[in-house]
């Protein structure tokens, strides 16, 4: 009950707990994997713009699973991220692109062009 108003101020406590848990799992990774995961995580924060906490937590959980799995299988860092880590990072983020802040702007852009082109919206494809 008391947690309710706190959560509206600071976000879901459950999400915070899960977030801390996932971050602790990243910190527990062996050296090179941890360094790679932290570098990618930093890039996600700059690039991602993921709006809702649920998506963020799901993404982070999947991300940590990937690295823990790589450690267990002995897969080298390079084999995970490939030649171009930026490419990998952005492909990974795209998998969660359903709820990004840019979505609002995408909707706005489509509406603006529909209006400018005089479309009534009936022939729009998905």
């Amino acid at each position: 009950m008391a947690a309710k108003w706190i959560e509206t101020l600071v976000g879901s406590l459950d999400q915070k707990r899960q977030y801390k848990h996932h971050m602790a799992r990243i910190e527990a990774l062996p050296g090179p994997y941890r360094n790679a995961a932290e570098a990618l995580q930093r890039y996600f924060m700059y690039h991602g713009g993921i709006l809702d906490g649920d998506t963020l937590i799901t993404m982070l959980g999947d991300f940590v699973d990937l690295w823990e799995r790589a450690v267990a299988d002995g897969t080298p860092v390079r084999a995970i991220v490939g030649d171009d880590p930026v490419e990998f990072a952005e492909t990974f983020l795209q998998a969660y692109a359903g709820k990004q802040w840019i979505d609002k702007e995408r909707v706005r852009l489509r509406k603006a062009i529909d209006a400018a082109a005089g479309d009534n919206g009936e022939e729009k494809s998905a």
Partner: protein
Amino acid sequence: MGSQMTEMLKGTLEGIVLAILAGRPAYGYEITAWLRDRGFSDIAEGTIYALLVRVEQRGFVDVEKVPSAKGPPRKVYSLNAKGREQLAEFWRTWSVLAERIEQLHHNDNQHDEGA
């Protein structure tokens, strides 16, 4: 693998992975290994992983967590009915695209011979 190959693969990789899963359920590491064995040598495991996450979110696969001797449980992906529809659509699109590009290639060759 050259960058042109990488670029071309980008648009088809989802279909390729769905086609692999149509054969039998698999986890990410298996799929990457399978692709590497067949000449897709530069595919990053993370790329396949991200793709599997995406097809999961779009509802094309069912996922089962299978305990593993070492590390976290493995996520085993299997193609479901929606995934099979998507794969059929991929093959239809692929046929049209391949036919049209082959036609361009053919015309181009004829042009070269005539010159």
